C-alpha cells in the first residue's frame, strides 16, 4: 500500500521537473539512487516531520527506537504564535522487547498518554523503519485510537528507508489529503481566503508577510503548516486560492486540492522584491477571478508601490557596499532563482548557483538571464567548494548549515539561508534583513585577523 502511494507521488503531474522526464525515468521516482558511502541528506521520515511538525497544537508522536526522535527533536526554528505542543518531543522509544513482541500496544498507550497529558485537538503518528520492518500496523492503531479516544489520530506513513526527505514531504502531504483536509468546516469564511502550502514559518517569516496580506484584505485562512492549528488545516478546503511555496515539496497537495475542491493554485515565493510583488499581484488577481472584490487589486498595487519604494530606499546604502562583492549561492529549486533576483537587486554579483533541486524550467530561466558564463552546478563536491573559496573566487557563500564549515574553515564569510536560519528573510522587510546580515558578516573585522599567519608560521 505504501509502495502504491510512493509510485503515485512520484508520478506528480503538477511537478514541472517530473513532466520533463520519460515514462521510464518517472517510474524510478524523483529520488536519485543513493550511493552507499557517498550519500547525504535526510530520510523520508525526516521530510514528513519537517512538513507537518509546524502544526503547533498537534501532538507529534514518533513510533520507533530512540534514534529517530531522540537524536533529532527540538532542532528546527519554526515558530508558533501561541500553543507550543509541537515543540514537545514524543516517542515510543522502542526497546528490544518491543521489537520482539511488536510495538502496537505500546504505541496505543503512548497515544493515550499524550492525549491525557496534553489534550491536543489531534495526534499525528509517524512510522519509522524498525516498526515498519516488524509489521506494526500504525494505520490500524490510529483507527482504533481515533475510536477509543474520540479525536483524530492520523497515521503518517513515511518510514525512513522508503526514500529521501523530499519524498517524505510529499507523503506527509498525502496523509493530510487522506485524513485531515476537508474533515472540518471553518468557523469563518470569506471570499478572499488563501491557504499557503509549504511555508513553515521558520524564524517567524510568515509574520513578515501576513500583515501585508491583511492590509490588502486577503485573509490567510490556513497555512500548511507554519504556525497552523489543526482546525485550520482540516478546513483548508474552504480556501478560495492556494499558494504553493516550495513547489517540489508539496505541489501534490496543491494539485489534489484543485482536483477535489476546485481550488486553483499558483506557485509563488516570498523571497526577493520582484518575486514578493509578483506573488501579491497573482494572489489578488486570482482571488478576484474567483469573485473577490476587485478593490483587492487596487489595494495590492497600492501596497506594492509603497513597499517597493520603501525597500529600494532601504537597500540603497547596501549597493555601494556590495559593489563588486561576489556570492556563491548554494540552495535548492525555486528558491535559488528567487534569491538570485533578490541579491542582484541589492547590488551583489552572483558568480554561480547550485541547480541540484531546480527544474529544467528554472535552469533555462537562469541560463537565459545570466548567459553561459554563469556557473551552475548539479553537484559540486565540498572539496571543490573549499578550493574556490580559499582561492578567493567568491567573497561570501550563502548556503545551508551543512556546508558552513567548508566556508568558515576556508575563512570566508558565510550566511545560513536555509531552513535552520535564525533570521526571517521573507517579504520586503526580509530582503533588507538579508542584506543587513550579509553586510554584517562581510564587514566584520575578524576576517583580516583570522587569515593572518601565527607568529611561529614562516
Amino acid at each position, binding site marked *: 500500500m505504501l509502495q502504491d502511494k510512493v509510485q503515485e507521488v512520484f508520478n506528480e503531474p503538477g511537478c514541472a521537473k517530473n513532466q520533463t522526464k520519460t515514462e521510464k525515468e518517472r517510474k524510478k521516482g524523483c529520488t536519485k539512487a543513493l550511493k552507499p558511502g557517498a550519500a547525504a*541528506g535526510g530520510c523520508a521520515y525526516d521530510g514528513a516531520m519537517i512538513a507537518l511538525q509546524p502544526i503547533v497544537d498537534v501532538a507529534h508522536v514518533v513510533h*520507533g527506537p530512540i*534514534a529517530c526522535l531522540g537524536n533529532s527533536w527540538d532542532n528546527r526554528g519554526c515558530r508558533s504564535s501561541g500553543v507550543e505542543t509541537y515543540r514537545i518531543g514524543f516517542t515510543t522509544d522502542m526497546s528490544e522487547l518491543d521489537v520482539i513482541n511488536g510495538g502496537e500496544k505500546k504505541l496505543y498507550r*503512548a497515544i493515550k498518554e499524550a492525549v491525557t497529558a496534553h489534550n491536543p485537538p489531534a495526534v499525528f503518528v509517524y512510522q519509522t523503519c524498525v516498526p515498519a520492518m516488524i509489521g506494526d500496523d500504525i494505520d490500524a492503531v490510529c483507527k482504533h485510537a481515533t475510536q477509543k479516544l474520540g479525536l483524530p489520530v492520523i497515521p503518517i506513513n513515511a518510514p525512513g528507508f522508503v526514500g529521501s526527505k523530499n519524498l517524505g514531504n510529499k507523503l506527509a502531504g498525502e496523509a493530510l489529503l487522506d485524513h485531515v483536509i476537508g474533515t472540518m468546516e471553518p468557523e469563518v469564511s470569506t471570499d478572499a481566503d488563501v491557504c499557503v502550502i509549504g511555508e513553515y514559518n521558520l524564524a517567524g517569516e510568515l509574520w513578515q508577510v501576513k500583515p501585508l496580506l491583511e492590509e490588502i484584505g486577503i485573509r490567510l485562512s490556513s497555512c500548511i503548516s507554519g504556525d497552523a492549528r489543526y482546525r485550520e488545516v482540516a478546513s483548508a478546503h474552504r480556501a478560495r486560492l492556494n499558494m504553493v511555496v516550495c513547489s517540489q515539496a508539496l505541489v501534490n497537495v496543491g494539485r489534489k486540492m484543485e482536483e477535489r475542491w476546485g481550488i486553483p493554485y499558483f506557485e509563488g515565493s516570498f523571497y526577493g522584491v520582484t518575486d514578493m510583488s509578483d506573488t501579491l499581484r497573482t494572489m489578488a488577481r486570482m482571488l478576484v477571478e474567483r469573485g473577490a472584490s476587485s478593490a483587492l487589486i487596487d489595494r495590492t498595487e497600492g501596497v506594492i508601490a509603497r513597499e517597493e519604494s520603501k525597500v529600494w530606499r532601504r537597500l540603497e546604502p547596501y549597493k555601494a557596499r556590495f559593489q563588486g562583492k561576489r556570492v556563491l549561492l548554494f540552495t535548492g529549486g525555486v528558491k535559488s532563482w528567487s534569491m538570485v533576483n533578490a541579491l542582484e537587486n541589492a547590488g551583489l554579483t552572483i558568480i554561480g548557483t547550485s541547480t541540484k533541486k531546480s527544474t529544467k524550467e528554472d535552469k533555462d530561466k537562469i541560463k537565459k538571464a545570466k548567459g553561459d558564463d554563469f556557473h551552475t552546478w548539479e553537484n559540486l563536491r565540498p572539496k571543490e567548494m573549499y578550493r574556490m573559496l580559499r582561492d578567493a573566487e567568491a567573497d561570501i557563500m550563502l548556503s545551508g548549515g551543512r556546508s558552513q564549515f567548508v566556508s568558515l574553515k576556508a575563512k570566508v564569510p558565510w550566511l545560513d539561508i536555509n531552513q535552520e536560519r*535564525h533570521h526571517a528573510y521573507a517579504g520586503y522587510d526580509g530582503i533588507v534583513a538579508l542584506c543587513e546580515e550579509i553586510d554584517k558578516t562581510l564587514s566584520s573585522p575578524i576576517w583580516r585577523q583570522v587569515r593572518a599567519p601565527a607568529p611561529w608560521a614562516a
Partner: protein
Amino acid sequence: MAAMTHIPRVPTSAKSLATNPLKMSAPLGGALAFMGVDNCLPLFHGSQGCTAFGMVLLVRHFREAVPLQTTAMDQVATIMGGYENLEEALKTIHANNKPDMIGVCTTGVTETKGDDMGGALTLFRKRNPDLAALDLVFVNTPDFAGGFEEGFAAAVTGMVEQLVEPVDYKIPGQINVLAGAHLTPGDIEELRDVIESFGLSPIFLPDLSLSMSGRQPADFTATTLGGVTVDQIRSMGASEFTIAVGRSMGSACAALEMKTGVPCRHFDRLTGLEASDAFIKTLMEVSGRQPTGKIKRQRESLVDAMLDGHFFTSRKKIAVALEPDLLYAVTAFLNDLGADVVAAVSPTQAGILDKVHARVVMVGDHADVEALAKEAGAELVISCSHGRQGAQRLGIAHHRMGIPTFDRLGAGLKVSVGYRGALNLLLDVANIFLAAEMDHHGGPHDLHAPGHAHGQEGHDDAAGHACGGGGGGSCGCNAG
C-alpha cells in the same frame, strides 16, 4: 560487545510515551568515539536518515564539520540484507576519502534484520584483499538497546579488541587513557596537560581534543582531522599503565588488560577535590615524580573556591539529568559541595547509577526531570540544552552540560576534570546562586517569590525562539 539492555537497577519511568527524550542513540555514541581517531570516517549501517540526524546533532553541539557516512539502506536492501550496501560503502569511502580507518556502527534497521557483522567483516576481507591496509572496526549498536554512552563504549572496546596488539616490550613513560563519553575535548586536553606535567606520554583512546576542538585545516578533508592515530592505538600494548575514566570504560579496560597485560586503574570520576587527589596520587606513583608548582597551585585554588563557594551551594536543590558517567561525576561533586541533589535522571540503565546519591535516582526523560524538579522545588537544573524548555516553564536556572549543547558556544571546550575543571564547575554553579542572591537582596523593586531565580540563565531563554540556537544563523543545525 553489543550494548545490551541492562538489568534494571534503578526505577524506570513507567510511561509508554517518552516525552522530551534525554536518550540519544547508541550508534551516535559509537560515531563520536570514532571521531577521536585520526583520518577516520565513521559509517552508519542503516538508512540515510540515521546518519543525517546524528550528524546534525553533533554539528550543533561542536560547531565543527562532522565526518559521518551511511550505507544508505533502502527498503529492498533492508529486506534482502545489507552486505552489498556495506561493501559498496566501504569501497566508495576508500576510493573517495582514503581514510586510515572506517568505524562501522550498526543501527536499528540492520540489527532488526539481524545482519551478521562478524561474517560481513570476514567476507569483506576475503573479497577485497587489496584493501587489507584499510583498518576496519565493526561494532553492534542497535538503536533499540542502550544509548549514547553504551555505543561510545562499544566502539572503544571494539577498537581495543580489533586493533591493539600484545607486544613484549615497554615504551618508558607511555600510558594509555581510555577516555569515556562524558569527557569533552577540553577535558582531554586538560588531562593531557596534567599527565604530561609528570613527564608521561599519554595515548588517549579516543582523543577528541585533537579532532573536535576547533582545528583549522590546511585543506578540506572529508575524514576526521586529528585524533589518536591507528598506529598509536596499536602501540597501546607497549604502555606502562592504563587509566580508564568513567565506569562505561570498564569493558574496554578489561579487554585491554586481558589482551596486553598492561595494568589498569579505573576512575569513576575525575571531578572533585578527592577524586582529583586520587588521580594525581596515581600519576605520582606511576611517574615517580612530584606534581609541578602549577598543579599544586591549582589544588589550592580549588580548595579556596570550595571555602568561598560552599555558602552558595550548600543545600541548594538541584536536579541533574545527564548520561550515566557524567551524571555520577556531577552529582557526586554536588554532593561534595553540600548541595541537595533532588533528582538524578539517566537516559539508560548503567552500573554506575548504584553510586549516584540523590533523593530520586531514575531512568527517564526531560519530562521526568521537570516533574521531579517541580515537586522538590528545585532551584537549578543541570542538563543538556534540551532541558531549557522545562527549566523555563518552572522559572528556574538551567546550567548546560552534556550533549547536545547547542544554545551556548564552546560546549566542547568546557573543562570539568582535574582541580581546574572542578574549580570551573564549582564557579559556574555557585555563581548562578550568588547572582540570584545578589539580585534578590538587591533592590526595592524585587517582587519575586523566594527561590524564583530571577536574572538567571533560565530567563535568558524567555524571549528566545523555538530553535534556541546561538543566533547569527550559525547554529548549524541543518541536515541539508
